[in-house]
């Protein structure tokens, strides 16, 4: 394992402390229990948005704390859900009286810990669960689909509504709409290495890719020989379009997300391939996002998310945002 690391026990604390110093104009870091919160107190009457999850997906979620997005984020250990006391402390710290909306990715550990945190928090609160990964089947017999990159879009869009005086109920409703309108699928070329493990999470050949990989290096649909980008992108989009079934005149946001180890050069190439394929199918791409937003440590690979946008979603996507990882309009 080659990583910038001093010792494993301090890995997260040191990284989080550095994150706090680097972005001290936007956020504060609280340790024990650890959470990231806005430097400026949430204004009275604004619904507070809190997300969180295992670390290793940076900049998600701490990088999305700030004006127009989250009020707080609770980082767990690498790839492990955060603990209820973190959510409780974060909620107590940021709630300005309008209630707290927890944004939770659909994994058993995250759901259980957020549920317990919500039970321990005495103020008004509600939750939305993201599950945009079309790689795994959704049936009544499973935990359901995984929550992955579209969580970033949910946080941005609902964050804007909360900033524009949306109520807790309205924020939840919009979040659920964005989640339902989004589909994601990812591909990995290499594994990631959890620092505590010290070795790669899975073995993969030099000429192989994991199609439909999860953001923790979980297996996806199948292991295949690597193919030209256009073929890979075409197969990903086919799975997403099968699921989302966008109308021809509908507007869409195309989000190409890096898993951490793939350079932007390649991500933009993926974006170009995706644009061409969508165009050939008569699907309109109106908005774009390209970069490393929902990562899996140093994994090489990318995911593609398509979000069907109505006017409400477009308006809140364009609204100003100022966080460590996403900034426009201010």
């Amino acid at each position, binding site marked *: 394992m080659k990583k910038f690391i001093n010792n494993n026990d301090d890995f997260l604390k040191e990284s989080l402390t550095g994150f706090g110093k680097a972005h001290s104009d936007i956020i504060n870091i609280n340790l024990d229990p650890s959470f990231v919160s806005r430097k400026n107190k949430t204004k009275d009457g604004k619904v507070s948005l809190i997300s969180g999850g295992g670390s290793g997906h940076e900049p998600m979620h701490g990088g999305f704390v700030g004006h127009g997005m989250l009020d707080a984020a609770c980082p767990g*250990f690498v790839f492990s859900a955060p603990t209820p006391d973190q959510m409780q402390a974060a909620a107590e710290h940021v709630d300005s009286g309008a209630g707290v909306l927890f944004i939770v990715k659909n994994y058993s550990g995250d759901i259980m810990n957020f549920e317990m945190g919500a039970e321990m928090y005495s103020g008004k609160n509600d939750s939305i669960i993201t599950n945009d990964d079309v790689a795994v089947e959704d049936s009544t017999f499973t935990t359901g689909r995984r929550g992955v990159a579209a969580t970033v879009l949910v946080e941005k869009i609902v964050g804007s509504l909360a900033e524009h005086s949306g109520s807790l109920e309205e924020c939840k409703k919009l979040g659920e709409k964005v989640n339902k309108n989004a589909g994601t699928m990812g591909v990995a070329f290499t594994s990631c290495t959890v620092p505590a493990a010290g070795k790669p999470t899975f073995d993969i050949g030099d000429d192989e890719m994991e199609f439909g990989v999860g953001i923790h290096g979980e297996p996806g649909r199948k292991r295949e020989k690597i193919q030209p980008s256009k073929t890979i992108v075409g197969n990903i989009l086919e799975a997403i379009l099968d699921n989302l079934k966008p109308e021809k005149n509908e507007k869409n946001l195309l989000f190409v997300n890096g898993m951490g180890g793939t350079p932007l050069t390649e991500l933009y190439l993926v974006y170009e391939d995706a644009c061409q394929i969508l165009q050939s199918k008569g699907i309109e791409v109106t908005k774009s996002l390209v970069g490393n937003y929902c990562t899996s440590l140093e994994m090489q690979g990318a995911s593609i998310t398509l979000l069907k946008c109505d006017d409400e979603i477009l308006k809140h996507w364009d609204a100003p945002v100022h966080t460590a990882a996403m900034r426009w309009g201010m």
Partner: protein
Amino acid sequence: MIKKEIEFMSVSFLISQAKSVQKVIDENSAEIEILDQKIGDGDHIFNIQRGLKLVVELEDAIKDLPLAKALNMIAMKVLSGIGGSSGALFGTFFMTMAKSSDLDKDVDFNKACEMIISGIKAMKERGKADVGEKTMMDVLLPVSEKLNELKNESEFKTGLNEVIKIAEERMLSTKDMLATKGRASFLGERAKGHIDPGARSSQLIIDTICKSVINN
């Protein structure tokens, strides 16, 4: 009759069991890690090891406390120090045990069984998982049922030997299951052929504690 000198659920019993379990889990850590990497994301063993370390380190803080308080401290430590599904589930287990009535009196074998049964019931409610879904509940729920039968028997050693056997059988039975809960559920058919890591760690914990009570 059950001999009085055997401690079934005292603070010192909890501490010594945590130490024995820690040793056994450490010895089997590579196996559990590999199982989790096959069908999960590899964090289970680190969470269990971190939790055990935190509980063992609580020794000085809890050794002179009443049982209910000690269980509560263990619960909060597990809940806030582990994370993931394991932290929520085992935290719920200890928190529920801490809420048992009459903990200020001596805890006999029947009472200890009752506490464990109520703890496992709360874990089932928290995780919303039942038998047959390829999780730790595949081991814990049948064990809880067996304890429920046992608690009225005076010959607990035979009973605990059966518990050990049931835990092992049920752990092995997860190998051919499709997962419908937890991280492995996303895999569909690909999860088949691998023992669930949570079922394995739970079985090791049960095995260690039962053997230590039997041999005491």
